[in-house]
């Protein structure tokens, strides 16, 4: 029996040896770890589309294994370590909650390079990358103010972290630039990825009378609810037009592909450096889905704002801006700096919600 086990183990090891031997043709491994399903129609799908673009562009030089549905926490640490050990040269960890796990594994494997999306902890072999989603949300706010009959929109938020608070504020500022009395209601779903909860949040907001819906969660469930109830909505992370052909006004589309290709090319060239990258509309890391279901003048306005943000003429967080309680925050003409934005934990005037603290 013992001999049999040894023989089995040996043949199994041989099998494994062959398979890795066949793969190792000097190809670099660029690995991805996802918090959700890569067919979620939103955040994770946007990253996976980027991965596929990378595969297409540099497929002869790299392979791109991935792990999906990895929970944030100790499981993430194990999954990332497995990637480092399985020979990944560059690992993209694509959720905020992977931050500490990425830091720990990066310390253990100094020869492997890591990039963490939307976080703030870096190391010589750990870069961070993020997108100025708030630029797109400002445009959405303007469209909402034009399209809403009641001057009231609903926002499905995930977690009260600066990233999300910043998006809510940008939306409200955009709306107020058109309609100074515009109000925004917020529901905290306390999840990134949960179609059931997201749909419930959407229903709750619609029952409170909002006629425009936007979201900072990952799935198309809110878009579907909006479509059923016959109101308008904005897509998030991916173009969600398929879930609401008559509903989606536009969507903030995360276009990570170009970034992934750029960084992988740097890895191949040996010029990869740890950087803290925060790109926006002008860099192409973020694009707006086609402006649909709106009159031509609204569309023209949106396109104009988009162009102004790209050229740098317009910064969404430009004073005068008051905080929610009416106290002044930015003086006329003053622009918020990146540090303030990245640590933002207060609302601007007009947001009809109490920020969970």
């Amino acid at each position, binding site marked *: 029996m013992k001999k049999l086990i040894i023989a089995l*183990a040996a043949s*199994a*090891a041989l*099998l*494994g040896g062959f*398979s*890795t031997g066949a793969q190792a043709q000097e190809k670099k491994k660029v*690995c991805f770890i996802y918090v959700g399903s890569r067919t979620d129609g939103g955040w994770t799908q946007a990253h996976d589309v980027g991965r596929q673009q990378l595969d297409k562009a540099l497929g002869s030089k790299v392979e791109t*294994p*991935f*792990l*999906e*549905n990895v*929970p*944030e*926490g*100790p*499981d993430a*640490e*194990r*999954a990332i*370590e*497995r*990637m480092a*050990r*399985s020979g990944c040269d560059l690992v993209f960890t694509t959720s*905020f*909650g992977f931050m*500490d796990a990425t830091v720990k594994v990066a310390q253990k494997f100094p020869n492997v390079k890591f990039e963490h999306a939307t976080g*703030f902890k870096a190391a010589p072999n750990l870069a961070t990358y993020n997108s100025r989603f708030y630029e797109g949300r400002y445009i959405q706010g303007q469209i909402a103010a034009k399209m809403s009959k009641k001057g009231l929109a609903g926002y499905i938020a995930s*977690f*009260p*972290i*600066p990233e999300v*608070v910043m998006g809510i504020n940008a939306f409200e500022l955009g709306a107020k630039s058109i309609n100074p009395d515009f109000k925004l209601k917020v529901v905290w779903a*306390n999840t990134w990825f949960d179609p059931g909860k997201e749909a419930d949040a959407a229903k709750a907001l619609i029952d409170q009378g909002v006629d425009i819906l936007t979201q900072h969660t990952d799935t198309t469930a809110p878009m579907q609810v909006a479509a059923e109830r016959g109101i308008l909505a904005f897509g998030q992370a991916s173009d969600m037009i398929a879930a609401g052909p008559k509903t989606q006004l536009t969507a903030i589309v995360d276009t990570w592909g170009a970034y992934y290709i750029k960084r992988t090319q740097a890895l191949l060239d040996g010029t990869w450096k740890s950087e803290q990258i925060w790109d926006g509309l002008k860099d192409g890391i973020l694009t707006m889905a086609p402006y649909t279901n709106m009159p031509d003048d609204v569309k023209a306005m949106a396109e104009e704002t988009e162009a102004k943000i790209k050229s740098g003429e317009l910064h969404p967080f430009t004073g005068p801006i008051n905080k929610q309680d009416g106290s002044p925050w930015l003086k006329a003409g003053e622009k918020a700096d990146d540090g303030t934005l*990245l*640590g*933002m*934990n207060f609302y601007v005037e007009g947001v009809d919600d109490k920020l*969970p*603290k």
Partner: protein
Amino acid sequence: MHIELEKRARVSTLFSIFSPLLALALTLVFGVVMFWLLGKSPLGALYSFFIEPLLEVWSLHELAVKAAPLILIAVGLAICYRSNNWNIGAEGQFTIGAITGSILPVMNPEWHSPMILPLMLLMGMAGGALYAAIPALLKTRFNTNEILTSLMLVYIAQLYLDWLTRGPWRDPQGYNFPQTKSFQMEAVLPEVLSSGRAHWGFIFALVAAVALWFMMRFMLKGFQVSVLGQSERAGRFAGFSARRMVWFSMLLSGALAGLAGISEVSGSIGHLQPSISPGYGFTAIIVAFLGRLNPLGIVASGLVLALTYLGGEAAQLSIGISDKVSRVFQGLLLFFVLSCDTLIHYKIRLVLAGAKAAEVRS
């Protein structure tokens, strides 16, 4: 026509010993078919699923990390279920244990005494036990269904943790991100060996399993559990109190779930955050039944279930099969174990509609 399960007069000893192995074999056979249908080499897939994670030391450590909370919770649940108390809320007791155990490091980050860790573990157990005391009280006092109350308390616990980590316990230097300060060195459950991440939580799990096995096998308390579980009336004739058993089993399983919670937070995570468990408290129910409610069987089933998680990852990376496959595997395994066990005790009988009608008439 319908199907009926009829109790067998005699249960085959041979089959009751081999039924878990038979179930495992059936799972493997179906696994091979599934991989073959997916167009993957079945041998390679099974290899990366079940063998690869066992070949490296670090991976064995990860297996222990993953299995520890499952075993610790499941052995407590086994006592509950054997005594006919249906605690479904281990996930909540796990969460509350993690919270009460974390009070010391969160409130006193500058306290560097070696006393802190034992106190944390005790407070974690106390927290889990007290949280399980709520459904126990409701059941003994008002005859409330503990399945419902314990389950609903899970959501309260999770939201309470959510509120704590976003609110009063949030790290002020953490950019508003929802987590507490990292625990000080002295408050971190140490690793057992320097070769990997497995921490003392795994040792606690093994000790708990052996101790409860001993109790069930050799102690009066264990006998009480079995008797009251099989027939409360018989237990009463023997002078055993069903009410006391509710308290005993609920507090015990709550304390063990709480210990699992604080061990996981202190040993694997290092701080509190809104989500600390990928559903260990619920998966442990599966583990308990796979181990046939026997504490030593649960050690084995906990390791097997942990292996399917690790194997799922390994297979995703090396041969690119979806992570859903590992869930299908877990489902297959549970299905075959339960059906094998059922068919040992029962046989299937086809009842023809006509026959039934005749029976009724006569």
